[in-house]
């Protein structure tokens, strides 16, 4: 299940809800993918968002937005009209992206793929092929964890087979 999901995220290039149109780079080219799994409930907790906001700002200041993609996990508020519920969430996501100057694409977990991925709140999945890392992290992050996420090894993809 994990392999399938991560592989799908890593190999696809797609448009997502964001302040700007972005394409996620192919995993084979940049060796690293940072998946930020947002819990929609945390949008209404300003204190919960502080550390997430700091992380996104750091991501941007270190020019690593291109390695990142967000996934928004949510529960439909209207079971009878899930399509409308999805549109409401998409709209609030747009506001969140604008309000927090998010520079990477964020997609809705419409099929609830990430729903049960053992995150109680917003968390991160790091895939780093060059350092052979596949890990998950929960907020707030320690300095050691931040270093681990933001570090990467320069690898010539032609040599790394």
């Amino acid at each position: 299940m994990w392999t399938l999901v991560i592989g799908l995220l890593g190999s696809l290039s797609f448009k997502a809800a964001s302040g700007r149109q972005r394409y996620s780079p192919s995993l084979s080219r940049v060796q690293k993918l940072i998946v930020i799994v947002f819990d929609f409930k945390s949008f209404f907790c300003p204190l919960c968002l502080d550390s997430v906001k700091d992380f996104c700002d750091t991501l941007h200041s270190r020019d690593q937005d291109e390695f990142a993609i967000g996934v928004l996990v949510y529960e439909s508020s209207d079971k009878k009209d899930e399509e409308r519920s999805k549109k409401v969430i998409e709209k609030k996501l747009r506001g969140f992206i604008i309000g927090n100057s998010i520079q990477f694409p964020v997609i809705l977990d419409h099929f609830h793929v990430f729903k049960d991925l053992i995150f109680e709140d917003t968390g991160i999945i790091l895939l780093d092929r060059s350092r052979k890392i596949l890990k998950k992290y929960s907020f707030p992050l320690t300095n050691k964890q931040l270093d681990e996420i933001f570090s990467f090894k320069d690898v010539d993809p032609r040599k790394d087979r």
Partner: protein
Amino acid sequence: MKFIKLLFLILIVGLSVSLHFLWGKEQKEILLEEVLSIGCLDDDSLFMWADVTTDLKGNIYVTDMMDYSIKKFNERGILMKKAGRRGQGPGEFIAVRLIEYFKGLIYVTDQSISGIQVFDEDLNYKKHIPLSLPILDFEIISEEMIAVSSPQIANPGRIIVIDSKGNSNVNIKHFGDMQNFWRNAVKFEIDNQGNLYTIFTFEDKIEKFDRNRKKLWSKSLLGKRKVKRRKTRVKIGPSELPMEVAYKDIALDNSANLFILGGHLSKNPSRDVYVLDKQGRHLTTFTLPESSHCIHVDHRNFLYARAGEGVTLKKFSIKYGKK
């Protein structure tokens, strides 16, 4: 001539009596007619608005929690100005919440930032009024008098009045429960005569006090039902916490009729609006088309409420009629 004067007098008395009946007893129906809708699923005007106020020209000011902003719309619903961003500096917000208009100034609170920020009608930041207490509700009485409702643990049951520097000089005591301070959570309105109307957030209680803080009446509209509560395990603080809301908001129309938005205990939760007159008589109840967390009635008797789970603001004309 005398006969004409007598006839005129009888006519006036008869008109007054019939008007009394019309407004006191026969005014039992309110119909809402939607006149404006701001924000929809496909645009970016509102993301999750939290509170609304209006000025005397019909402009609409809104706090939007999702993009940390305050927004000004004209009476046709066109966005005129947006201000604010995430932060804790002047003109910035973390969890922007309440908004009030008073004589050319816009007063704004934030759940995560103490005090009240003040802006002009063009949403330019002007000043900050310091206040260390959390603000549940507030009302601008004058530039030097701001009434604030705060669920305080130390001094329960007060609505305090602060000046523009944040100094507290007057208290209005209405209720005291040291064990469960949340029971003191009230929202309120003050009419032109200085009368105070309070609704309790977690209790089925609506009260009126005169300008000397003497209680004039106390009403219950929900059969004195109690909100669901759960026990807490903390040694310090309340022994139980509420899980439901009795009343969500209060507004006054230009006849000083009270509009009270019901919460979980209402037949139509978060949609039923109870209308009472100045004497506390329950005139009628009407139901909003969609659930709302707040209501606002402007000086021209237009009602504003939420729709679309917070992405839409609707404006209704209030039509009074007989059943």
